[in-house]
Every structure is written in structure tokens, then in C-alpha cells.
């Protein structure tokens, strides 16, 4: 393979090494190279948020980041939220509030909402709606997603 680069990075607290071409997005590297398919592709041009990850503390659309840019970075993906003891409160709230229908946008929403609640434990509906405006959901009309995030914020206090 021409021009393959070795990337050393941290995903969900574990050191991960992979090889990638300069043209491969981080999303593609996560899904097809590392084999972590929890991060979803909905548009591949930064407009749907299904591929949201936390990248050095900021939420990004991983389709807009190149794989080589992950060198030395610290990432959290949907696979990093649950522990052997159980689900993250956001994951639990999404289940209890029926905040998913098809579920394809769910990993992106949960990761984006985690970044919000980590930074701002006290949120209201308007703040949640503003924060999640970069994530598209076509099934729910967002009502139950917003409720789930508010519910999780209460549980996490």
C-alpha cells in the first residue's frame, strides 16, 4: 500500500496502533481499520453527527478528521462509555425514555451529550437542543432524546 502511515493513538483509554493512508478519514480508520463500528457513517461530510467522537476533549465529526491526525491524540467513542459494571447514565436514560427508534444516530447523540454533561452538569431544554443541533435524528423528532439527556443530567448529579 503506498504511503501508509503508522498512527499511535489512545482510544477509550487504551493505546491503539494502526496503519492508514493519508486519504482515509478517522471515521474510516475507526470502522474499517480498527474494527470499531459503533461510530456510524450517515453522510461523510460533517452534516449529520452520526460519527461524533470526543477528540482531545472536543466533540468532532470523525468523518472530517483524517486518520493521520489521530497521532498522539486521546479519543472517546461510543464503545468507551459502558463499563463492565454497567451502562453510562446516558445510555440507561436513552433506553428508559425510548429515545431511539432505529438507533443509527444514537451513538453520535450519546457521545455528544456526554461531552455536554461532562462540561455542564446543569442543563436545561434550550441548552440541550442547542448543543445537539449538530446531530440529526430522523425517527424521534428529538423530543425523547432531549428528555433522555435531561433525565441523565439529573441522575448524574
Amino acid at each position, binding site marked *: 500500500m503506498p504511503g501508509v502511515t503508522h498512527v499511535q493513538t489512545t482510544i477509550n483509554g487504551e493505546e491503539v496502533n494502526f496503519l492508514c*493512508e493519508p*486519504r*482515509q478519514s478517522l471515521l474510516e480508520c475507526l*470502522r474499517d481499520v480498527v*474494527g470499531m*463500528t*459503533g*461510530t*456510524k*457513517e*450517515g*453522510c*461523510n*461530510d460533517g*452534516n*449529520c453527527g*452520526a460519527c461524533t467522537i470526543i477528540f482531545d476533549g472536543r466533540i468532532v465529526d470523525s468523518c472530517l478528521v483524517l486518520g493521520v491526525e489521530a497521532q498522539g491524540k486521546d479519543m472517546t*467513542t*461510543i*464503545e468507551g*462509555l*459502558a463499563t463492565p459494571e454497567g*451502562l453510562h447514565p446516558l*445510555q440507561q436514560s*436513552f*433506553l*428508559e*425514555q*425510548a429515545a*431511539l*427508534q*432505529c*438507533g*443509527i*444516530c*444514537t*451513538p453520535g447523540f*450519546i457521545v455528544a451529550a456526554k461531552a455536554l454533561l461532562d462540561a455542564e452538569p446543569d442543563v*436545561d*431544554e434550550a441548552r*440541550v*437542543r*442547542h448543543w*445537539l*443541533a*449538530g*446531530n*440529526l*435524528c*430522523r*425517527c*424521534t*423528532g*428529538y*423530543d*425523547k*432524546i*432531549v*428528555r433522555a439527556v*435531561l433525565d441523565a443530567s439529573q441522575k448524574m448529579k
Partner: protein
Amino acid sequence: MVSNPAEANIVLSEVEFDVVGKRPIRPDGVDKVTGRAQYGADINLAGLLHGKVLRSPHAHARIKSIDTSKAEAHPGVRAVVTAKDLPFSSLSKDELGSDYMRLKFASNHVLAGDKVLFKGHPLAAVSANNPHVAEEAINLISVEYELLPPVLDVLDAMKDDAPLLHDDLHTASLGETSEKPSNVAAHLIYETGDTEKGFAAADVVVEREFRTAAVHQGYIEPHNGTAFWNVDGQLSVWTSTQGAFAVRSSVSDVLRLPVSKVKVTPMEIGGGFGGKITAYLDAIAALLSKKSGAPVKLVMSRTDVFEASGPAPATWMKVKVGATKDGKFTAVQANLAFEAGAYPGSPVMQGMLCAFGCYDVANGFLEGYDVVVNKPKTAAYRAPGSPQATFAVESVVDEVADQLGIDPIEIRLLNAAKEGTRRIEGPIANRIGLVECLEAARNHPHYKSSMGSGNRGRGVACGYWMNRSFPSSVSMTVNYDGIVSLIMGSVDIGGTRASIAQQAAETLGIAYEEIKPTVVDTDSIGYTFITGGSRTCFATGWAAIEAAEEVKSLMVARAARIWDTPEDNVEYASGVIQHKSDPELRMTFKELSRQLATTGGAITGSSNVEPTGEGNGYAVHLVDVETDLETGKTSIVRFTAIQDAGKAVHPSYVEGQMQGGAVQGIGWALNEEYFFNDKGQMMNSSFLDYRMPTSLDLPMIDTVIVEVANPGHPYGVRGVGEAAIVPPMAAIANAIKGSAGVRMNSLPMTPGKVLDAISGEGK
């Protein structure tokens, strides 16, 4: 701050249930919130190759030649296919007989034959060891085109001198076929009573023309298809679809294989709304796999999804309603012309059936045209045909009420369809819940509230979808620990596993958690129609109930054998098996399950059903909007969705259907449209430019579930997925009459169109 939408539900059914009506956590939930669930694009197989599809940049052109030699020679490429690789290319018209046109359209839709008919039309495909190499290779394929004038509008397409998409397509009209070829594939009429007399008897007649733009279902997961054609001739397909059996049918059809040579495994599906019934990629992946000798995965880009899957049709409509001064309708009429896209098959007939589905009309005339144009072939989108027709009808009904000074809910109640109402096309309604929904709307705090200050308006509209049945299969095996494995052919698109498991648990008298549902492939269960048509909870639920009944009778038989007593001396009630004459002899479901292994083996109940009695679905929406009169932008201030669910099996997922449908309707009303240039090229094929509602654009969507039990289902269930998208466009248009003082006759009601209407230019 955040109200609980469940509190306002109106339960009119008398029956109490143990599991049905509760809100348990869905069985597939943990996998979906942790990223473990395997959707179509997540599949990885040993030796998997990646494919890309070459698509037409032109909306209408003859293909003079395709040269794939450079692509074939490109390093890393494993196979290249074109329409020549489809069996249709080597079958003669004589061989195919009456099946010729159908197979031609089906095959050419998969890979273009002699012409490309829309921008995005697949021409060729490549498999390679990685997707980037495949993409490089498709750019090396050279195609020579002879450009033809594109036909881009439904009314232009119907003109006598319009360029023809298909020189062998003739109009089917009332049992006759036209001699001249035409872009009009079908002309349909339904009629009841005497509309001429009816309109003559009216005090008020309102007649208006409407236009709606093509819109997309907008599911977040792009289409995908992975196939492996083994050397023994067995073809396996893994795909995101609303119906594994539908994919099996279409793949086996265009590849001319017996259905049993094709096994389709439905992966988790990331939204469909009707758009994931057509198999766009699966047959191409199969052809590539056959040539490559390895499994091949194809995934659409978002642009491909917009340009080459199936949007809902753009339409032209004319609606006329006559009423007495008291508001009683004397006659109604709707003329509908729907763009089918490149091949026949728009939902114009459903639009006709739904147009006046909310009303009891003695005199009605419905006419529909199915018209091909150089745009992607349309597909189903949630209550296909009804949202467009209802936008027109409910706008005119509102104007009639306006002119007569009658409250918009009152005029709808006065004319509402109810049990015994005969629809224009013939069928007579069973027990339906439209009146109850309208009364719930009239009594709702929203309808009684003040709208607040600003340029605000309130709109109301109702909507109808007939709901469907079709075949479903379910099989249930009792494990030795008392847990029941339930397998079904219905894919789970938004809580199906939960709602089917609830109905099974209710029937067996055991806990919801004791049913373990799994969606299986086409080799593992009997034929099951798609998850769509608002049929699944109804029909697959029915299959689960019947399979559970069989389990019950087999459990009784087993207990009788253990107790050495006749079967009719054993009864089954609430999950307990009881010896009738000896009260000491009783076993719980779990206790008997433990003994199955040693008393004759496992117990399996199965059922294949096609129930009749799907109850019609009705929804009523209330909306408050605010319009900025300087920019023309309309915002949703408050929204209440009311709908008859018969019996809400899992109320949270019923609310979810209502909210999701309402918000898709809000997008359809205000933002969403396919925008084409004069060459027929879609200019907004991304989520940036095709603007779907975000969380920031919306308030909470309040819901009221009305439960008027459907007498055609054991638990009173009626489908809920589709009626929810029908009312919003008209409700919002009617609200804009209040907020901006104008009646809108074209979707979407963008700021520009609203401003034009205010200034009189839009008239």
C-alpha cells in the same frame, strides 16, 4: 418545563392488560446504545471486497458505449459489471412475453440498459480490495452519451409533444391501453354519487391548485448491500432493509434465480420510512461477487442516497369542495398528478384513496395520473401519497370553514368518517377513531390556550392512512428455563421486537422479559411482508399471538401426558397449567418448561398469518406557528399530535411514531425539497443543503394517544406509523393563514414563498 406526554392519553378501550400497554425496555436496546448493534455497513466478512457504482451525471441520455477496459486493468480491481451482466440483457422479448416490460424496468433500474433516465442512474460497478481503489476505477470507465432533453415536471411530461422516457410505455386507463406511447403510465378514476349535482347544491365551493416538491425519507443510514455468490450457486445477501423477503424477491427476480437460492439476512436498519423496500445495491453486489469470487460490500454515499434512491413524488393537485352554509359537504373532487420518477409506480392511487379518507361524502370524484419524469424513481415514504393529497384537501376544507365562519374542528366533526361510512372507492369503515381524535383536539388545553403575542397563527388538520396487513410468520420455542425464544421475519425498525414480545407475553401470561425475540434470515422463518404500511405491530403481533396460543395448547398436552389425564382435563390460565379435577396438580410455565427435556422434548408453536381487520388509522394535529413578516420564516411554537392507536402496545414507541411523523411533516412543510437545475441535476444532495429539522428548530411534540379498540385485532391494535405524517403540512399551512394572512398552495412553504404570497406575487 418539560411536560409528560403520557398523562393526557385517552383510553376508550375497556380491556385491562398485564404486558400490553406497558413501557418495557426494548430487547435490542443495550446493543444499540453501546454501538454493538450490527447495521448493514458494519458487516465484515473474510476476504471482503468493496464496491463502487458509476452513476450517470445526466438526467436523460442514450448510452452509446461503455468502455470498462481501463477500470479492469487498474491494480487492485477484481471485477467490473454493467447491465450486460444482468440476465435481462440476454433474454428476448418473445421469451419473456407479458413479463418483458416489468423485468426490463426492474433490471434497467438496477443497472441502466440503453438509456439513463435520471442523474445518479447506475451504469456500472467495480469491486476492489479497498473502496478508494474501487472509486479510482469507476473514474476510469468512459461512457459515451447522446444527450436527450430531460422531462422534469409532471404537467410538462403529460403534454402530447413531451419527450418520451420510454418509447414502449403506454397509458393504462380504465382497462384500456393507449395506442401512442406516453409518459403517463396510468390514469385512474374513483367516483361515487353525482358530483355535478352535489356542487350545484352547495352554498360555498372552493377550488384550488397545489404543488408539492419531491422530498426524501431522510433516514440517517445510507443504503448498503453485501453479497457472496458461492461456487455452489447459493447467494447470500446481508443488507439493511425493511423486508428481507422483499429483497429476496427482487434479487432473485432480476438475477433469474429461484428464491431458495437466495438467502437474505436483514441487518439492523438505520431508518427506512418506506425508502428501504427497494433493493438498489444487492443485485449489483451479487454480480460483483460472482465475478470476483469473494464477498462484496456496497455502501451508498449521502449524495447517492438523495440522487439514486426513492424520494416521495413531487405533485400537481387540484381539489374542490362544496358545502352548505351549515358546513355539510355536498360534493368533493380531487385531481392528482404524481411524478413517478424514471419508472412507473408513484403512490397516486394511495393519494386518491386517502384524499377524503377523513370524510363522509355522498358525492365524490377522484382522478389520478402516474407520470414518469427524469428524476429518481419514487419510493414509498410513510403513508405514501396521503401527505400530499391531504395537504391539498385539508387546506381547502379549512378555507371552506373560514368562508362559512365555522370552527375548523367543528366542520371536520360535522363531516367526519365514522363506523359505517362508505369511502369513495367503496369499502365501509369498521370502528374508527377520527371523531374521538377530533374531540380530543377540541378539548385539549392547546386548542383552548391563548397563542401569545407576535405574528402567530393556529392550524388544525386531520389525516388518514388505511393501514395494511399482509403475511407474517412467527415461531416460538420454549427453552428448559422457561424463557421463550421468539423468531420473526419482521425487521425491527423502531421497537418491533418489544411490541411483538409484549403481545406474545400477554398471550402466554408470562413476563415480558421471558420472551427473547430475534429477527432472522429468509431461510429461517416463513414469508413475512415488509416492516411498513403500519402493519407490523398488527399482523406480526397477530402471528405472535397465534404462535403463543399453539404453545399454550402444546403445554397443556404435555401436562396432560405427565399427569396421565385427558387434555380437556387441563387448563391454561395466566401462565399456570392446572389439572381441573385435582387442584393439587398445577405447574407454572417455568416449572413445566423444566420438565420438557425429559417428557418428549422441546415445544415450538408457529404461525403464518395474513389477518384481515387492520383498522384504519387517523391523526389530528394542532400547531401554533409564528411567521417573521420581514424574512418570511415560519417557526413552530407549539405542536400537539393526537392519534388513534387502537391499543398502544408500547406507548413510548407509539408516541415516538407520532412525534417522528410530525417532525418529518414539519420538515416537508417548511424546508425540505429536491431542487433541480434545468438539466435535471439535483443541486442540494447533502444534509447541508437538503435541510431536515434539527433539535434546535423544534419545540417538544406533545402527544395524545387515543385508544379506540380495533375490533379486528385480539388486543385492539391498529397501526400507528404512517397517519402521523399526514396532517402537519396542511396544519402548518392553515396556521400560516393566521400568522401571515396568506393561504399557501405550494410545498415547502419557504421564507421566499411566504414573502411572495404576502406581497401578492405568489398568487
